[in-house]
């Protein structure tokens, strides 16, 4: 239960989201970091721990003028930032540092200062996946979907409801990229990308960033912001190759990270007021709901189609609009964390009244990695 003693005191996204032509990738990290420091009244000299992905902690510390005593460069895809929160909480609790800055920035759309990420032809992916024609996540991430649909009898219409419901949340969010309502027919008639998925079932590609600042719960009381406590955390990895995941209907990494976080927090599913599940593609909320134990196996499609996760439903999910409608720079996990923090502070555009516990669940790569964080606005 040691991580109960750590809180998020600073949180911010980049000033702009979407298409950002006047900042490179490291500039997006810095913009978000400066916004997060301003949020809680700190300067770079007050930070003694740095965690980041996409850039290295060396680049971020140097660029911002920070001399850290602790760094974490865990880079396992979009859930790296959940894992940074977990590692930072442990480091603060162990006394390795006092105040940790976690940064994300990604010029996903404009591609300014974003190094290319080729797949080496002598890697396992390069030998045993790339020769068969994948081109990035839209061609790889949906590969397990047909197996899931067959096993549980999930329909294309039920899957389409994931996108429809998240657009309803996005409509409440002034910063969301897409806000116009869509129907199941709109989803099923949108341009085919990689059957069974169409463009409205794939995430956006945008520019942006975000940053978090963590310190001990005891110190958190002295900050101007409402502390958001880290109650429990979990992490795991499975495989760099989606073709090699053990079960195409369940993520092993999700099934380790989620329950680890719940157990550490000492909560059960009925305690959860608000949920974020990283939705790079429309099947991820289904896998997340089942692997984290919110619904029995095979029932997530119906659960979403019956509007349980929609505005007014009993389990508000992806209330910023998600990667499908809010924004997605490439490593979306930071934006899911930002929405959990906003909900716990009580300042989200689509605020869940009285929410006390938020679960934030991330994926990295194509079911390659996972991190889960349980937050609360009530001191543990």
């Amino acid at each position, binding site marked *: 239960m040691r991580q109960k003693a750590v809180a998020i005191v600073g949180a911010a996204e980049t000033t702009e989201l979407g298409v950002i032509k006047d900042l490179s990738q490291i500039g997006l990290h810095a913009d978000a970091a400066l916004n997060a420091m301003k949020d809680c009244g700190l300067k770079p000299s007050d930070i003694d721990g740095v965690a980041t992905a996409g850039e290295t902690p060396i680049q971020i510390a140097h660029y911002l003028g920070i001399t850290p005593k602790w760094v974490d460069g865990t880079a396992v895809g979009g859930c790296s930032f959940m894992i940074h929160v977990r590692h930072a909480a442990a480091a603060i609790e162990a006394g390795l540092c006092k105040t940790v800055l976690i940064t994300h920035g990604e010029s996903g759309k404009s591609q300014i200062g974003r190094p290319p990420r080729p*797949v*080496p*032809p*002598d890697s*396992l992916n*390069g*030998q*045993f*996946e*790339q*020769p*068969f*024609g*994948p*081109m990035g996540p*839209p*061609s*790889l991430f*949906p*590969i*397990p*979907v*047909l*197996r899931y649909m*067959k096993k549980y009898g999930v329909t294309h219409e039920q899957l389409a409801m994931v996108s429809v419901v998240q657009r309803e949340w996005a409509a409440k969010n002034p910063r969301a990229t897409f806000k116009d309502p869509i129907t199941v027919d709109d989803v099923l008639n949108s*341009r*085919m*990308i*990689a*059957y*069974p*998925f169409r463009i409205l079932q794939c995430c956006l590609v945008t520019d942006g960033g975000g940053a978090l600042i963590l310190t001990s719960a005891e110190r958190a009381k002295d900050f101007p912001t409402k502390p958001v406590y880290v109650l429990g955390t979990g992490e795991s990895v499975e495989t760099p*190759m989606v*073709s*090699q995941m053990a079960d*195409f209907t369940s993520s092993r990494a999700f099934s380790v990270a989620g329950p680890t976080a719940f157990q550490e927090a000492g909560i059960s599913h009925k305690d959860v007021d608000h949920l974020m599940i990283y939705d790079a593609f429309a099947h991820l909320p289904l896998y997340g709901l089942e692997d984290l134990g919110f619904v029995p196996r095979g029932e997530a499609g119906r659960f979403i189609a019956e509007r349980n996760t929609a505005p007014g439903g009993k389990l508000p999910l992806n209330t910023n609009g998600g990667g499908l409608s809010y924004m997605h720079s490439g490593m979306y996990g930071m934006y899911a964390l930002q929405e959990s923090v906003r909900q716990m502070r009580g300042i989200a555009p689509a605020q869940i009244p009285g929410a006390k516990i938020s679960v934030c669940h991330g994926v990295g790569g194509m079911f390659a990695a996972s991190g889960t964080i349980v937050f609360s606005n009530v001191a543990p």
Partner: protein
Amino acid sequence: MLEPGRARPKPTPETEHFWDGTKAGELRLQRCDDCTKNYFPPRPFCPSCGSRHVSIFKASGKAKLHSYVIHHRKVPGFTPPYAIAVVELAEGPRMMTNIVDCPQTPEALVLDMDLEVAFTPMDDAITLPLFRPAKG
């Protein structure tokens, strides 16, 4: 033969036997001599128990279609739409591949359909293990 432009695998010491096998018309898998687990992709130890006592064997080439997408975007070496598939080999392991001699449609590509390996040369050195509907 294949359209030119595909990403070309570059064998390593640990995977050379696999690529030598496809060139020779054999689908070579590995088996743990201690725990009997069949596994893929290649490595010189068992991913199930860690034993270094492993053997290479010739697989049957029989498989079932486990899952796939039909990709609609242009990729060098491919004319869309084309399926990127994962097959489950009769011996247990799964591998990514393409399905040939079959329309690239949801109607023709039925999960769990029987497949057989179709060794397809990419160039003089590399032959890819593609799969086609089993002739029964």
